[in-house]
């Protein structure tokens, strides 16, 4: 697994775990076990740091990761006005 793949994969997993805990609390669903070991670092340091970053910075970092989104993708133009 490449570095960017690894970073994205771990980041997604940790952000989802934090969100699941929050949403589970909101809906009264049994909470997942508390994080332990290395997960503690991710949950206590990375997740709050991610959410503290300005959105523009986050998207800039995401956009710079390698992937298909950096290739050519066009949207077809939307038709406007009456059809007939």
């Amino acid at each position: 697994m490449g570095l960017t793949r690894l970073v994205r994969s771990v980041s997604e997993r940790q952000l989802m775990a934090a969100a699941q805990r929050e949403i589970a609390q909101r809906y009264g669903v049994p909470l997942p076990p508390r994080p332990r070991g290395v997960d503690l670092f991710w949950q206590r340091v990375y997740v709050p740091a991610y959410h503290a970053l300005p959105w523009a910075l986050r998207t800039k970092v995401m956009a710079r990761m390698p992937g298909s989104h950096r290739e050519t993708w066009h949207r077809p133009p939307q038709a406007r006005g009456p059809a007939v």
Partner: protein
Amino acid sequence: MGTVPVPLLTLGWAPLSIVNASSGMLNPPGGHPGPTEVPCMGRRIVIVGGGAAGIGAAGAAKGTDPAAEVIVYTQYQDAAYSPCGIPYVHGKEIPDFERLFLGTKQQYVEQGIDIRYETEVTAFDPKAKTVTVDGRPVEYDSLVVATGFTYADPGVPGGELSGLYYVKNIREAMEWDKVLDGVRKAVVVEATPLGLEMVTALCHRGIETHLVDPSPWALSMATDPDIAKPVEDSWVELGAQLHFNTKLEAFQGSGGALRSVRTSAGELECDLAVVCTHKVANTALATAAGIDLGSAGGIVVDERMATHVPWVWAAGDCIEVPHGVSNVPVQGLSGSHAYAQGKVAGVNAAGGRRAYQPVYVPWGMVAGTWMIGGVSFSETLATALGVPFVMGRAQGISRARYFPGVQPVTVKLLAEPGSLRIIGAQMVGGEGIKERADFLAMAVRTGITARDLATMENVYSPAIGALNEPIALAAQDLLVKAGT
């Protein structure tokens, strides 16, 4: 049998005019190899993989250039069947596996598509423009890589035991179906879309079924607990035992056969474990050939399904494509995505011009006694990524309240604050979920707002539609929450 990816968010796509809106065909391009650069007669198009993407590519290539020699290599005995139907044969909703085949081998022969069954491509060389088959090079003019996916390794001891079922190949499924007749207890590992279908199928089969998942509710990557709850309750009614917030620790056995799984919540005896982990792009061949991969682990392609390497296209579960809302690449989508991507790759590999679009990933399925579905963002996913949203929720009905068979339909909508553009939806109900998911995917794609949906017109006909459309009710609730 798809997985639902995490669409990281970056709103906004700039429309450009090089794609013909009605046909999806590209206007004259810039930069990619075009049809004038290859001989138009007798070009050889080699396709690696006989799944939805590979077969879609083969048909489209032949349709674009009837004179082309189209060769499909598949390591399996069959091509062009619907693996997504396998759980429903196991669950006895579909009486036999034969119905899952899309066409006979003879039909492909008659179409001029040369499928080489049980033939493995072990390498390809983009510089020499050859694939290696049985140790010998085979030349190509255009190559389409459609190598599909593998299931993520559960990463626990005991993976070598017999009794671990990975639902994928139809011939193996036929054998496993016989095994199921003798299974008393089964464990389904992970509540992915396939996991949901297999829990339901095994319950229908009368097998004591345990679902083990590390998350707090089913399909937690795509849904919220209020949407998943009816499904989970119906599984319990069907006899399933649900073990959420539970990690798989080991497959345990004796004499080489599975006897139990060890989990963070204790040991579960079983004769069978159905491993339904998420799909990972099968990129071994592409990686060895120097093709670029992206952050989702799939092959990097552009809108023409072209890789960085000239004359090499790729499609299906082995690639990644940008999410239309987030602009971040996602991988491991549905068979319909793979087939459509394959067709785009096939047209372009044969000298035509066609473009694919960023995806919004409508999804849906039958789970337990409910239909469940959605598109793009859930409340959980938006929360994970720190995406601001306004949410509306409503429960409506699928037909006139007095019409026999009327079913509840719950709709939950997420919109971007301010503009109120729809960025996601989830639904659970008795019927009509797939059509609403498709419709809402187009709503997200075209930038429709909650205001538009709140005042939408809807079909009212007692047998098929209620006076109030549940989507409109959810949008009206969203407007109230948004204070407009």
